[in-house]
């Protein structure tokens, strides 16, 4: 990470302001205006539109991995997606992915 302390604080402050503006938006308006239906429809897809694209390169080209992507990365990623999809619960996907990824590493350390 190559940011000055000042730049990091600027990122945090602008994210705080921007996030508040988004959350307050319609609550701030007088009365109860609705959003145009097409925009509302598009917004419903933002999480599934942003997060998978963000995660794909991280899985295929992991940041800190010395030897690049390994079977272990792919197995942990599949365990996280599969479990979270089946159970519909974030927490189980998280635990499944973490167990697959870190249990072998912990054995290595012992």
């Amino acid at each position, binding site marked *: *990470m*190559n*940011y000055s302390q000042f730049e*990091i604080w600027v990122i945090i*402050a*602008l*994210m705080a302001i*921007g*996030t508040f503006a*988004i*959350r*307050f*938006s*319609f*609550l*701030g*308006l007088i*009365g*109860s*205006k609705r*959003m145009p239906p097409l925009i*509302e*429809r598009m*917004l*419903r*897809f*933002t*999480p*599934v*539109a*942003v*997060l*998978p*694209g*963000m*995660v*794909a390169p*991280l*899985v*295929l080209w*992991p*940041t*800190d*991995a010395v030897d690049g992507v390994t079977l272990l990365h792919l197995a*942990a*990623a599949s365990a*996280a997606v*599969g*479990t*979270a999809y089946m159970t519909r*619960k*974030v*927490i*189980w*996907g*998280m635990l499944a*992915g*973490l167990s697959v*990824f870190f249990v072998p*590493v912990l054995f290595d350390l012992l």
Partner: protein
Amino acid sequence: MTRSLEKSAFWTGVVDVLPYIVMVVPFATFFGVVAIEAGLSLAQTLSFSIMVIAGASQFAALQLMLDNAAIVFILAAALAVNLRMAMYSAALAPHLGRAPLLQRAIIGYLNFDQSYVLAVAKYEDQPDMPLPSRVAYFLGVSLTIAPLWCLFTYIGAEIGAWIPANLEVSFVLPLAFLSTVAPMLKSPAHIAAAGVSIILALALAGLPSGSGLLIAALCAMVTGVVVETLLERRA
């Protein structure tokens, strides 16, 4: 009498949100761990959780910072993750729009996934609920979650300092994103959007960090709406 009504609405909110704590605690802890490992100071890590209170976007910003993306792209991608909350705001407005401005500002600050989901369900279930009770219920939910989010970020940051360097902690990030997204894939339209997002993000990975993702996300949103519309027409 009304005071006790509001008190009971507040505590109903506290009780309703308890099951969500199981999810918030590990997520906040991971954020603390990963933020410290990434090189943020304790004060910066905590400020993130206190001022932003939006897990997925905090992780997104962190990831792009690790890639040394330009600040504009960090903000654009991280705020795009939060755009869904404009929809929450629109959904809450008919129920809470008449509260005093200061109360609405506080509700805006505390308007996140759990508080929105529980509050809208409650208001639709009990349309006769008086406005002060609605506000009290919302605060019961959100004021239970928000302090825990910050406390466990702090605990995670302290743990992060103890984790051995040879553990590949940064891979926790993709695992957290994948676990967050998988339960959202509830229709063919959502799956199509996710597919387009992945393919374009990989194809455009050569562009300056963060910019390819924005193009991919925009195309994915349009894909979602188009597929959904086509499926509705056919039905």
